């Protein structure tokens, strides 16, 4: 699957593997967009793979979370059943175990919706990267319908470029972290007033030179927090997929460098290993969604519950 799809590059397998792995986790190129759109203000806004996946994730969250909850709220006697039970368990866990201890009971209802949105969006976006939709689609179209692999006029072939995990893209996570950045400022302003929020950055009870240093550090920290959120999520989601592809690529590398039988023999170890890493990735998917929401809640809570 992984090595045969690189297509354009030539040379030995060892030379192709690096590009091929990057090709499988990064966004598809703007030169070959899925849907071509005219540029606005000189910015190319054509739809690439990750943009498409963002839409898919948004649609899935709407169908599986927003619509059931809206239906549930309209009922006369709201008693959860089936899928609603799962949603309610998650919602009450996030509200009681993440938002309430960190933000405080006064502002729980203000910020719980945003934290919940983060959680569901990141969970769905992370999770969809583990499902090999496009690999299955590509294999079906190539082997069942005989679509040639280099031909980019077929929409399915265009879909094969790039990775499916949107949260593995630094731009997406930067967007999410930017929301946290503004949420911190708004939370502080709501709790203490706009001016008082900025005054809270200055710790009280220090001499002037130390205060100046601390203000610099606090200002830096204001930007480092969302930056760390961005990097943590994107790097975690990309790292697991790279490890998975690298282990699968060993088969092709050894098959060429030693002999084909070695490659087949190595597959006995590589494939179970890849399966195990996929299992680990399921944990990572859940943990990273939890971490992003927890840290967002902690940072918002730090702006609200200022203590010196």
């Amino acid at each position: 699957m992984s090595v045969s799809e690189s297509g354009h590059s030539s040379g030995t397998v060892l030379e192709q593997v690096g590009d091929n792995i990057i090709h499988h986790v990064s966004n598809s190129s703007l030169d070959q967009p899925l849907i071509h759109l005219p540029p606005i203000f000189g910015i190319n806004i054509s739809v690439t793979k990750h943009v498409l996946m963002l839409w898919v994730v948004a649609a899935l969250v709407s169908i599986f979370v927003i619509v059931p909850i809206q239906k549930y709220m309209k009922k006369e006697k709201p008693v959860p059943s089936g899928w609603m039970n799962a949603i309610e368990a998650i919602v009450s866990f996030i509200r009681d175990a993440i938002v309430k201890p960190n933000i405080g009971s006064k502002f729980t209802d203000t910020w719980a919706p945003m934290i919940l949105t983060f959680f569901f969006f990141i969970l769905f976006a992370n999770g969809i990267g583990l499902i090999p939709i496009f690999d299955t689609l590509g294999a079906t179209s190539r082997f069942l319908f005989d679509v040639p692999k280099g031909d980019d006029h077929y929409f399915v072939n265009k879909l094969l470029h790039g990775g499916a995990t949107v949260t593995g893209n630094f731009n997406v996570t930067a967007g999410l972290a930017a929301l946290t950045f503004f949420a911190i400022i708004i939370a502080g302003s709501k709790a203490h007033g706009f001016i008082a929020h900025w005054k809270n950055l200055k710790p009280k009870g220090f001499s002037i030179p130390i205060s100046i240093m601390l203000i610099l550090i606090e200002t830096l920290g204001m930007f480092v927090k969302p930056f760390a959120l961005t990097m943590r999520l994107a790097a975690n989601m990309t790292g697991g997929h790279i490890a998975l592809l690298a282990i699968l690529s060993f088969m092709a590398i050894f098959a060429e460098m030693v002999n084909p039988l070695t490659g087949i023999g190595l597959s006995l170890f590589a494939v179970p290993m890849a399966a195990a890493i996929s299992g680990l990735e399921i944990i990572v998917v859940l943990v990273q969604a939890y971490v992003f929401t927890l840290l967002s809640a902690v940072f918002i809570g730090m702006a609200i519950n200022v203590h010196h």
Partner: protein
Amino acid sequence: MEDLFLIGVGLGLGLIVIGAGIGIGRLASAAAEGIARQPEAADKITGAVNLPLFLLEGVAILGEVFALLVLLMTRG
């Protein structure tokens, strides 16, 4: 000359992993000891361990991203 960059990146990655490993190991051992002494406080201890664990992991990942950036800069 380019190989020296690669050695630097590799050494840096190794040091990051050592640092993160020591940090997470100490955290886990302290948490395990705490839970062993007071099993009824397990929930509280787990909650208190989570946040520093993720912050620590974040620092390690930042280091890895910068190592990757150095690698990409030397290549391109």
